[in-house]
């Protein structure tokens, strides 16, 4: 079973109140050096069968038509290879 990750972020020109709130809070809490924060969504999809071009194509379609609202959001699709810190 493979995992495909779809990241969905608000388009850069769209105001992100959640990211801004985080940003402001960081300043208040005394964490410097972070000039901007944007908050989006991360979807982890467990895919049955091989993650070939066909499967990725279908996931792309899911992301475009469903997981993201492309009026305001951008998305990326990638296969996760298990690295995490």
């Amino acid at each position, binding site marked *: 079973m493979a995992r495909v990750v779809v990241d969905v972020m608000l388009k850069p020109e769209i105001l992100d109140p959640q990211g801004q709130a985080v940003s402001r809070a960081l300043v208040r809490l005394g964490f410097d050096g972070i000039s901007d924060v944007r908050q989006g969504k991360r979807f982890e999809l467990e895919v049955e069968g091989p993650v070939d071009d066909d499967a990725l194509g279908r996931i792309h379609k899911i992301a475009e038509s469903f997981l993201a609202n492309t009026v*305001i959001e951008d998305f990326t699709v990638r296969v996760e290879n298990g690295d995490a810190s």
Partner: protein
Amino acid sequence: MTARIGVVTFPGSLDDRDALRAVRLAGAEPVALWHREKDLQQVDGVVLPGGFSYGDYLRCGAISRFSPIMEMIIEGAKEGLPVLGICNGFQILCESHLLPGALTRNDHLHFICRDQKLRVENNSTAWTSSYEKGQEITVPLKNGEGGYIADERTLDMLEAEGRVVARYLELNPNGSRRDIAGVSNAAGNVVGLMPHPEHAVEPLTGPTTEGLGFFTSILKQLVNV
């Protein structure tokens, strides 16, 4: 024969019974519609009520938009069926691309419930003809993701075509662009509105009865036809 107005219940709809009541108080015949049916039961107009359909998970309205009944409503709306989306219904209409733009998290990040003053900017839509142009009304507003956004070009177009149906007065409760509380499609049969006129139809339970006009408007229009 009076007009038959359908109110759709999606899983997680909350204000469906209130919308049915408002339709009834306006003198029309309320018809309950179920999200799984592909049958509009010959209604003359449809209300998509407020609530948290599918828990508002993913994005508000994003999952409901794919329900069987929405296929029929999208088809019907394109042929002139009057459709009013209130709050979650507005979100569903945007997700369905029957209305432009999108609704995003309130700029202050909190759910807000208040009595909201509005100005009815356009009284030529199917749902606003009972109002005077420019009439100021107060109805409840309650939402967590009510900030209306669209790109500047779209906003300019909406303004130019008179498709801003209602605007917030005194306080913009959610960061909506240009204080927009509601918009319509080009033909004026589809209207999306963030505030809740169905909660302002009785003096006992609402801050005013000034929401009733949305429901009498549609009745007037249908009876005149």
